[in-house]
Structure formats: C-alpha cells, structure tokens
C-alpha cells in the first residue's frame, strides 16, 4: 500500500483565472495545511472546480502562484506535482478492465505486467474491489466505479488527492457511506484531500477545513464547526442554512451588545464583543435555527416584551426526525426558520397558518461582517488559515 510522500501543504497566492472576459477566480489566497481534508464549498459557477483544476494542473492560473509542499508547481505535469485527481464522471477508461484501469499509470511508467497487476490488486483490495478486477467499468454500479477511480488515483502515490464532486453521482445511501469511507482513507493515507462539493452537509461532515466560496472569492475558510456556528457574513450564514439572518439599525450599544431595530419595528440585541457600533449604522447578525423557541401567540397583548422575539405566521412545517423545521413568514422580509426539538414540538403541535411568537436569548445573536467590511485580512485560528480579500 503506497503512502503519501512529501509535504502536501498547498498555498494559493494571489491567483486569478480568467476565461475570456470572465474571471472564474479573483485574486484568491488560501493555504491548505498538509494532511488536511479540505472541502471547497459553493454553488455552481463559484470557481471551486476551477481552483481544483488549477491545483491539478488541468488549468493554468492567469496570474498568481500555486505551491505544493513549498515549491511552485505552475507549469508542472500532474505527476511532477504529486497530485492525483478523481473526476466527477470518474472517467474510467471504458475499454480497459478494472485491473488495467488501476494499473494504467504503472504501465505508462514501464512497469512489467506481473508487477503492475500485483500492485493494482493490492490497491483494489484496499477499496474492497478485488473481486471485480476482471470486469469492465460499464459492468459496475456507480459506487463500485467510484472505488475503482479512487484506487486508480491513489496508485500514483500522490501527496494530494483532488476530488471533483466525488459523491454527486451516487444515491443518498451510498453518498453517506462513501463520504465516511473517503474520510477513513484520507486519515489512513495521511495525505491532503481537496474535495469539491455544493452540498453543505457533505462538506461539514468530512472536512477539517471548509472553504465557502461565491463568485470566485472565498467568503470564509475555517473549521466545519466554526463555519456552521460562527459564519463570517450573511452569505455564509444563509448558504450554510443553519442560521437566520437579522439586520437593522443600531439604536444603542452597551455591555458588548447592540440593540438593533429592523424595518418592521422588531428589535433585538446583537453580541458585538469589542466592537463599538455607531448609533444609526446598519448591523447584521445571525441566530441559529435550533436556538429559537416557538410558541402560539396569545392574541396581540404579548407585544409588551418585543426584544429578541418576533411574530409571524407558520408557513411550512417539515418533520426531520429529531427535530421539526418550522418556517415562519413575516408580513415582509425573509422567512425565519426555527428548528424545534421533536419532543418540544409535539407537546403542543403547531399547524400551518398559526400565529406564533419566536423567542431567543440575547447572547445567541452573533454579529456578521457587513458587505462594507470586505478588504481586510484576518488570521483565522482554526487550521491556521490565512484569508484575505482584495
């Protein structure tokens, strides 16, 4: 079994990639530590696959530098880079058996048939596919093809494995199983994995480092937990889906909290820590969906304590097993979602159309960076990741 050789730390320094007039990636800086499992996460067209392909050597940056293990790699072949890529379509050669697909790179290097087949069989055993060595790719299921593609990529003994939406072609059951397996293989080999996905839950389930992208820029790069619980801005908060975004005008600030009033007259406090928000400025905050209590509104008399609460009408109810997702519509503004524990929900079940009051505690609303804050560089503790925005 080959193990990772060399340092798989990846530095992307000021990389821009243009296709014609369109910039797929703009002045991007990112450091991925050696032996990390990194997910590039974002909607389609955000530039995540372009970054992957530039690290792999299938695209060349328009400007900027890419280093692997400290050495510049732009212009080198994938083999010289020590990278291997697993393609979204797997790209298994349809005319070669599973064994010959896996042994292909050894054949190109001039290895003898017996030798390369022995090594290929060892790797197939690693992904539990040795029984299928003589099959052709078309005779395998999607999950089996993926295992073969993984074995084929790993036989080159790479220090970095690049996975382009590796789970998107699988059904839900296999996807959950394979993502666990990818994580296991990565730990076992001790090499850097970079995994491109548009699925939030997939990214936070496997990654040490999650890089949330939009429109060719990094919105946040941090640990999965930090991305989910402490999104840096409204985009990340909305995209990750576990948060509600609140915004309003600062009315007063004291004790590390600002009181903000939104356009419907609702008011809430936002934890601002050391910051000193100016009265009258706009502030954006986020509140986790699972930190919200929902109860039926007892008429309109409730309005006495409006701080850190809001009224609305139940728009949708989705049972999710351990919790119930309650979407609350307000007369204007975006929907507000509360994830209510199933035991709490079924104690006094709500129905669509019910008038409800959503409440939360003051210290749960975290301040987000506004769009005007872009342009600063910050050192993120989790994973020692340097992010900067131009």
């Amino acid at each position: 079994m080959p193990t990772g050789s060399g340092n798989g730390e990846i530095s992307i320094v000021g990389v821009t990639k243009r296709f014609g007039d369109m910039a797929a990636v703009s002045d991007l800086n990112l450091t991925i530590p050696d032996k990390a499992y990194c997910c590039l996460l974002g909607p389609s067209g955000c530039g995540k696959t372009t970054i992957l392909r530039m690290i792999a050597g299938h695209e060349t940056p328009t400007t900027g530098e890419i280093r692997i293990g400290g050495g510049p790699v732009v212009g080198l072949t994938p083999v010289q880079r020590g990278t291997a890529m697993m393609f979204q379509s797997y790209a298994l050669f349809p005319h070669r058996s599973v064994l010959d697909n896996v042994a292909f790179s050894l054949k190109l290097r001039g290895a003898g048939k017996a030798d390369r087949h022995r090594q290929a069989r060892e790797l197939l055993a690693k992904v539990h596919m040795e029984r299928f060595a003589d099959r052709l790719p078309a005779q395998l299921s999607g999950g089996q093809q993926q295992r073969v593609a993984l074995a084929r990529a790993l036989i080159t003994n790479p220090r970095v494995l690049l996975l382009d939406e590796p789970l998107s072609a699988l059904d839900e059951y296999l996807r959950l199983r394979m993502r666990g397996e990818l994580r296991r293989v990565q730990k076992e080999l001790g090499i850097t994995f970079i995994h491109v996905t548009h699925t939030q839950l997939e990214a936070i389930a496997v990654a040490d480092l999650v890089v949330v992208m939009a429109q060719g820029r990094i919105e946040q790069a941090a640990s999965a937990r930090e991305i989910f619980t402490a999104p840096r801005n409204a985009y990340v908060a909305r995209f990750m889906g576990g948060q509600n975004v609140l915004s309003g005008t600062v009315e007063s600030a004291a004790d590390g909290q600002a009181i903000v009033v939104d356009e419907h007259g609702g008011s809430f406090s936002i934890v601002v820590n050391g910051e000193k928000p100016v009265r009258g400025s706009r502030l954006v905050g986020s509140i986790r969906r699972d930190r919200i209590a929902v109860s039926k509104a007892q008429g309109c008399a409730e309005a006495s304590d409006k701080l850190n609460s809001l009224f609305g009408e139940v728009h949708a109810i989705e049972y999710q097993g351990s919790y119930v997702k309650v979407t609350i519509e307000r007369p204007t503004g975006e929907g507000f979602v509360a994830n209510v524990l199933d035991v709490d929900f079924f104690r006094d079940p709500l129905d669509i159309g019910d008038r409800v009051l959503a409440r939360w505690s003051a210290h749960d609303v975290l301040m987000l960076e506004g769009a005007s804050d872009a342009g600063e560089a910050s050192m993120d503790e989790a994973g020692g990741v340097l992010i900067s925005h131009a």
Partner: protein
Amino acid sequence: MRQAAGPRSWTFYVFASFFALFVLFLYGPMTVIYILSFQGPTGGLTFPMTGFSFRWFHALVTAERVGDIGGSFQRSIVLAVMVAVLTVVLSVAAGLAFRRRFPGSGVVFYLAIASLIMPGLFVGLGIAVGFQLLGLDIDWYTSALGAQLTWTLPYGLLIMFAVLGRFNRAYEEAATDLGATPWQRMREVVLPILLPGIIGVALFGFTLSYDEFPRTVLTAGTRNTLPLEIWAMTTNVTSPALFAVGTVTTLVSFIAIGAALISIAVIERRRTRGSGNSV
C-alpha cells in the same frame, strides 16, 4: 401514450401511405433487378423469367462482351480502401483539431464543408482540367482519388463531430493525470474509445467511394472504376448480365456494411459485457 387498440388519427394513414410509397420506390426496382439477374439462359432484360440460372453471373467473368468488370471491380475496391484510409486519418485529425476554437476555425470549417454542395461533375471537370494544365496524367489512383476525397472528407469530418460530441474530455485529462504523454494518451485512451466511430467514418469513406460517379467520371482517365464500367455497359450490354453486376455490387456493399457493423458490435459488447480477460 396512445393505446394500441385505440382508433388512429387520419395523419397516421397519410404518413404510412407515404412511407409505403417510399419503400416501394426504393426497393421495388432493385428487387426486380435482383430477380432478373437470375434470368434463364434464353431470357431477356424484362419479365417473364424463362427459367432460373447463374448464367449471367458466369458471363461476368467469362464473356468478352460485358467489358472489364473484373478489372474495374478490383480498381474500385482498391480505390475505396485508399479513400477510406485517407478519410479516417484526415477526418480524425481534423475532428480532434476542431474541438478547440482557433483563429479562422469557422472559415476553415465552412471551406471544408462547402464541397458537399459543389456540383460534383464540375468538381471533377475542374480537377481534370487542372491536371491537364499542370501536365499531369489523370488516373483513377491520382486525380480520381483526389476528386473522391473532396466528397468523403467533409462527410468524415461531420461524422467525427458527432462522435467527438459524445466523447468526454475527462478521459484525456485522466490519462494526463496518470502520467500519459500526449502520444500515449492518443494511443492508449483516445483512439480505442473512439474506435467504433472511426470504423463508421471508414465505412462511409468506403461506400461513398465505391459508388461515386459524378466526380470520378471525368477524372478516372482511361481505366474505369466499377460505376463507370456499369454506366458504359448500360449503353452496350443488352443481356441480364447487367443485372447480375447490380446484384454482385449490392452484395459487396452489404458485406462491407455488415463487416463494419459486426466489428462495432463486437467492440461495444466487449465493453459492456466483458471478455473476462485482462490485457
């Protein structure tokens, strides 16, 4: 979907009748020719059949009156093979090149395709005149070969576009990723995957050449290809031997198509069901 038992709309009958006419026009006359080629020894060019015999097929190889069928058949086969090989080599190369836009690629493409709408007789005439101007002799393996390529290459290119349209470039990137040089990538990955389509191009080149007439008639020189020979026969041969030629040439076409389809099917089967052997 419509139930099979339900009443059909009147459009069904219109189009079905049209299709029946089409089939009748295409296969009716051909069938008559195939049947009459087995005409009895005393029969003529029309019904009734006076018997059943292989006399007219026999006449093709022996009788002096039917002209140089054997020789022209040989020339046509050799020419068709040369055209097929050149069409494959050039169309595959051009098809691969056209996957990337390059300055003037649109102009080059339309220049290549335009020969499909040029009147064939005049293409042939132009080539013959050109050869004369340059002081070159026209012959079936020089001027006629070139004239036929003006016809088969655009077809080959269009087929390659269709073939490459379904070709996933990730195969090439995967090969590069695994350490293949451009040449290894072509030989080990691209060509084997494209092989069924390439056989299709060869088949088109072969059959287009095999019965090509307008571009060949003025460029073949003194020695005829088979279609030219048959054309000459229609004016001076008045026996069912003419029909026998038709039956034999149709058979050759079917054999060529059959061989190509079988080889494509074998390749596809090997890919989907597997031979169980690893190379």
